[in-house]
Structure formats: structure tokens, C-alpha cells
């Protein structure tokens, strides 16, 4: 545990020290052109923080559901030897409910990335 604490402190210290070394050795001559946002040689147009595809958001929500499922399964995985027959059937029921949920998600088209369905 003690070594773990040391490691925990040592890693950020090393990272900050490396950054400090870089600041110490490197020259710093900023000018206006150098500090502009990179955009393939153009002056930047429009805001960078703009609208993005809803699919990324949808993936986030799906991840939340499935990761929670994995989280709930972890205690069951380590206690497979101590849960009785009824505990096992409850685990199986949980998994089957999840499968049904997944089939619903799949057939509702939430996992479809291209817009083929909407066009046809």
C-alpha cells in the first residue's frame, strides 16, 4: 500500500517535471500568426464549438445503459459459487430482459449510423 502511495505521488511529479524541463530548454517566441488556430493554412472561419451529429449523443446514452448492466453483473460474477439456484435464475432473467431491450434498440434503428432507412 505504501509503495502504491509513492507511485501515486511520483507519477504526477515526473509528468510535471518533464513539462518543466521542456519549458526550461525550449525557446519561446510567440507571434500572432503562430498562435492562431490551425485550419489548413486559412484564417479560421466560424466557431469551432458547433453542432454535431446526434449519433454521438445517442452512443453516449447507450453506453450508459450497457455499462450499468456490466456493473450490475460484476457482483454476480464473483459470487457464482455462493448464490443458490434461485440466484442463478434471477441472473439469467436479468440477462434475458437486457437481451430483449437490446433487440428493441436494434430494431428501432438507434444503432444505424447511415441514413439509408430514412431515404428509402
Amino acid at each position, binding site marked *: 500500500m505504501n509503495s502504491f502511495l509513492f507511485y501515486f505521488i511520483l507519477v504526477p511529479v515526473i509528468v510535471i517535471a518533464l*513539462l518543466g524541463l521542456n519549458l526550461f530548454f525550449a525557446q519561446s517566441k510567440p507571434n*500572432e500568426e503562430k498562435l492562431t488556430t490551425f485550419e489548413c493554412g486559412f484564417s479560421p472561419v466560424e466557431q*469551432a464549438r458547433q453542432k454535431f451529429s446526434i449519433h454521438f449523443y445517442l452512443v*453516449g446514452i447507450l*453506453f450508459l445503459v450497457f455499462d450499468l448492466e*456490466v456493473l450490475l453483473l460484476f457482483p454476480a460474477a464473483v459470487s457464482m459459487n455462493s448464490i443458490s439456484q434461485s440466484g442463478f435464475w434471477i441472473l439469467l432473467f436479468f440477462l434475458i430482459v437486457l437481451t430483449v431491450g437490446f433487440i428493441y434498440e436494434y430494431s428501432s434503428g438507434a444503432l444505424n449510423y447511415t441514413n439509408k432507412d430514412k431515404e428509402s
Partner: protein
Amino acid sequence: MTINSTINSLLEALIVIGPLLGSIAYVTIAERKIMGSMQRRIGPNKVGYYGLLQAFADALKLLVKELVLPSNTDKILFVLAPMISLVCGLLVWTLIPYGKGLVIADFSLGIVTILAISSVAAYGIILAGWASNNKYSFIGSLRATAQLISYEVVFGLIILLVIFFVGSFNLTTIIESQKAIWYIVPLFPIALMFLIAILAESNRAPFDLPESESELTAGFMTEYSAFPFVFFFLAEYGAIVFLSTLSSILFLGGYLVPGIESNGLMTGLSLGFKTSFILFLFIWIRASFPRLRYDQLMSSIWSKMLPIVIAFSILIPCIVKAFEIY
């Protein structure tokens, strides 16, 4: 706490970090050398004998490069993001057993800790994309995040399947339970899917969509220069080495040597050989396969791999229960 034990702890921490950074450096050389051979080039061969010091030369070059902080970035987050990535990438190594009892933190919840720390590493990428205030960085970080969290689901479920056999989260217990047979034999299709999942987790080719060169410049790393860039680079290659180590622990018996009751140096060498083999697979795959399209990437995880893994997660508890494995 006596001074002796303090020095001991410090040495233990340094013994892990030093060779770790060295191995990351040599993975980059190995990649360039192997890719060179596969494409009938020589690869780097000027710095040091046979190009062996190339990585250190690169690091030194980047050490004297100017650290550019673009004017419309969020300065604090911009510098903090690569540091979060690297710190998380290095912290997970405390939990890896290099031999029986040769581990810095022998937590009983080892695997869960690994999952937790590697999830925090995703914040580095999100923050980098947001703080850079650049369109390429923004799109790159969105893609990287979506890819990371999608494959995290499959990654977690596959680890869960192994846990069903072991009945413990402790990494040493997972390795010791493979004395009879490595888990790659009973769980072969799962092991293959784990290989695909870790390729995507570490943003490697053929899943390197976040920084596909021709589309997004360098993805979320576009605005970074000098050492913050090195941090991202180290974190990325550190993740590759770590995930190879993890898969050799979960499926290839970690430090075990088949047929021999080994300890000391042999255990470390055994883990090293298995990890190097998977690292070589990583590079081989990069040299062989073309990049996927983004919608192919997403549909391959959500509508191909996930249903199979869910099917296995129903099958394997049933097998464990039916045969009373414990």
C-alpha cells in the same frame, strides 16, 4: 515509517516506472523497424547502432521545441488534458503482477480498478478536443470518445466472462487459476474479440479513425506541440503495452510458464514474451489492414460484436453453473 522503508517504496515505484518508459520507447522503435521490414524499407538506422537510440533522439528533439499555446484555447485545460492521459496511463501499472507477489498494489478489486482508471483516461481526450477550440480537434475527440466508450462495453463484458470462471477480481488469482489451462483455449472466440476490442480501445489501425491523417490532420492532437504532444504519444503507446499485458494476463496465463513451477526471473520473462507477441500482432495488423469507415466501425461494435458477447454472457454462467466449476 522509517527511512529504510521509505527508500524501499521509492525504489519499488522507480523500478516499475523506469523500465515502463523504456519499453514504451522501444515499442515505438519496434513499430518503425517492423513496419519498415514489412514494406521492404530499412527503417530508422542512423541514431545509435541499428537505430536503437532513435526514440531517445526524438524525445530530445521534442524537448527543445517551443510549447505553443494557441490564443483562443482554454489554457489550463489545454495543458491539463495530456497530463491526465499520461498519469492515468501510468497509474494502471501498479496493479500488474510480474510474478507471484511481485505487484505494487495487490488489490482484491484489481480488475475493477483497472477499468475505472482507464475510463478516466477518456477525459484527457475529451478535454483536449474541447480546450483546443479547433474544428479538427473537436471532431477528432468526438470520434475518439464515441469509439472508446462503445468498445469499453465489449471490453468490460469480456473481462466479466473471464471473471465468471475465476470468481475473483484479483489479478494474481486470475493468473493462478490458469495453471491447468490458459483461458485462450476454452474462450477462444472471446479472446479474438478481446484482441479487436483492445485494438479499438487504443485507437490503433485499422481503428485509428480519431486521427486518420488525411481527414482530420491529427485528430484531438492537432494543436499540441512539444512535450504535451509527447505526453499524448506516451499515453497512447503506454495504453498499447498495457492492453497487451492485460490480454496476456487474462488469456495467456500471465507470468505462468507451461509445465514448469517457476519463480523469480522466469515469471517476468514469461510475461514479457507473451506481451511482446501481442505487441507484434498489433504492429502486424497495422501493416496489413486498411482503415475502416466510421459507420462500419460503429456498426461492427453495436450490431455485430455486442450481440455475440451478450450471447456468451448468457452461455458462460450456465456452463459454470452446470458443471459446478468451483
